């Protein structure tokens, strides 16, 4: 089974057309042929031939329908076609004198089983069958000497009327399938284009967002430095360290790693270590998948704590599916913390030691 949408749609249309062909043949035989056969029962000189013809038509029709709807072998098409032509012969036998009169219903009717039987073949097969049907009719008319102009015009009317419908239906059904395929392929192409545009827009928006974040993280500080702020000022140095750690985290956020929260915390710890701070990171439990804004809320205060650390910092993460707590203990001066969204922030001081914790409780 293929997942290609155009193929799926085309198959669905084709299925509808095949079911319709089977229904038409069924109604034709049970509705028209049966009524005519019963009504003219007394007319047949060989009634057994009429009965066998009627049954044979039904057998060919059912076998053809089963093969078509179940997707059976296509090798049976011509044997079934020949059997359908045998119905012509049987009905000529049943009533030789009525060769082109209503009791002989076969001439036009066999075309409908042929539509079913040859549905999965090129149209030439159906045409060949109809030509054979016509040839049989001509031979029969000659054999029983039914050559009057009335007979001939009647034969032409029967054949033309039936063949037009049968060939028309065949071409129409297959054309519909082709058109459905085109429409589905068009629609799939349009969907793909839309998806590609949405992805491009998301990437662009993400870039713009990151640019705004970077701008927020560093621009003010850089402007102050440019305006003459003293780089030796401890407060400026702390803010620079925090800015650097935030930038590292922003970069780490796009890395594809199994444990993004820890990865982002390590990025912040790296910056502190480069300043000579001894950082240890202990993790207990497995960190669940968290969206980036939640991770940012969880790491923001710890990054500030790490950035303010003078010599030693200990980062601890305790995680379960329902809770993630990130804490920093560091020898750090007081830092200004803002309450992040979606997580609880608590902090405390003990002498020169700063303790702070962000905690997310899920559920």
């Amino acid at each position, binding site marked *: 089974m293929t997942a290609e949408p155009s193929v799926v749609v085309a198959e669905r249309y084709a299925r509808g057309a095949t079911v319709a062909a089977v229904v038409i043949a069924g109604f034709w035989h049970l509705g028209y042929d049966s009524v005519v056969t019963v009504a003219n029962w007394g007319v047949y000189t060989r009634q057994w031939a009429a009965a066998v013809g009627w049954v044979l038509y039904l057998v060919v029709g059912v076998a053809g329908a089963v093969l078509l709807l179940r997707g059976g072998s296509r090798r049976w098409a011509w044997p079934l076609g020949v059997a359908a032509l045998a119905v012509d012969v049987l009905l000529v036998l049943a009533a030789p004198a009525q060769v082109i009169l209503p009791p002989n219903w076969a001439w036009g009717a066999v075309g409908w089983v042929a539509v079913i039987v040859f549905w999965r073949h090129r149209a030439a097969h159906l045409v060949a069958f109809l030509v054979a049907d016509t040839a049989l009719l001509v031979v029969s008319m000659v054999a029983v000497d039914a050559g009057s102009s009335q007979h001939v015009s009647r034969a032409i009317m029967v054949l033309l009327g039936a063949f037009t419908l049968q060939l028309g239906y065949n071409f129409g059904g297959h054309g519909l399938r082709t058109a459905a395929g085109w429409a589905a392929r068009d629609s799939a192409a349009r969907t793909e284009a839309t998806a590609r545009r949405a992805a491009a827009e998301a990437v662009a928006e993400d870039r713009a967002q990151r640019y705004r974040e970077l701008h927020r993280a560093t621009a003010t500080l850089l402007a102050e430095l440019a305006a003459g702020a003293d780089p030796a000022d401890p407060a400026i140095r702390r803010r620079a360290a925090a800015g650097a750690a935030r930038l590292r985290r922003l970069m780490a956020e796009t890395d594809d790693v199994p444990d993004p929260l820890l990865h982002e915390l390590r990025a912040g710890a790296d910056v502190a270590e480069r300043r000579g701070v001894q950082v240890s990171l*202990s993790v*207990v*439990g497995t960190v669940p998948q968290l969206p980036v804004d939640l991770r940012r809320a969880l790491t923001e205060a710890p990054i500030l704590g790490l950035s303010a650390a003078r010599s030693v910092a200990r980062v*601890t993460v*305790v995680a379960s599916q329902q809770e993630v707590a990130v804490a920093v*203990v560091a020898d750090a001066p007081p830092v200004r913390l803002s309450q992040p969204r979606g997580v609880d922030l608590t902090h*405390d001081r003990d002498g020169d030691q700063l*303790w702070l914790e962000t905690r997310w409780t899920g559920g």
Partner: protein
Amino acid sequence: MTGLPVTVGIIEDHPVVVDGVTTWINADPGQRAVVVGSGADVDEVLAGPAGAADVLLLDLHLGETVVVDRVAELCTAGRRVVVYSGMDDPDTILAVLEAGASAFLSKHEAGGHCVDTIVAVATDRPYVTPSVAGALLSEAPHLSAQERTALLLWFQSMSKASVARRMGLSEATVRQYIDRARVKYAKLGRPAPTKTALLARAIEDGLIRADEIREYRSHAAE
């Protein structure tokens, strides 16, 4: 306690660490412990004066070998073992505790806790270090909310005093919560010889009823 200092044997392959730990022990204002022997090989140290030490301080990494499997053997022989290692992931900590170690000291946190741990272990008191608290947090599901909070803060923190302040409790109560968590964990019951010492504490705290003791012993004897 008899008033005599606790005797300690140090099994550690880095001389600088042995010197460091000895310095901490000697610097203890109460002079509560004394190092009686040290070395890089378990059997050599036990053959020496440290063979009768109250407490063994054991590094898990001796030269090229990791001696986690020796912990059970030492504990079964009736020794009080404090594992002192840099391998402080929860799995290792729980493994050595299950093997019967009385305490686990992480090399990250050793300084402030070393002597306290040794003295507590020598008197068969449960002593939970912050790293053990972390390991218990990941493992033990039967803790009360207060015990869990105490463990969490203790794991994150530097002193029980700061935990007590944050929880608005006395330091003694915090110690009780943390120790009780350790006892509960011990009670979860894997065979660990020195946990018979914890049993007394568990009964004291009303965590184990007297009629449960038989079951506990049979379990420990498996």
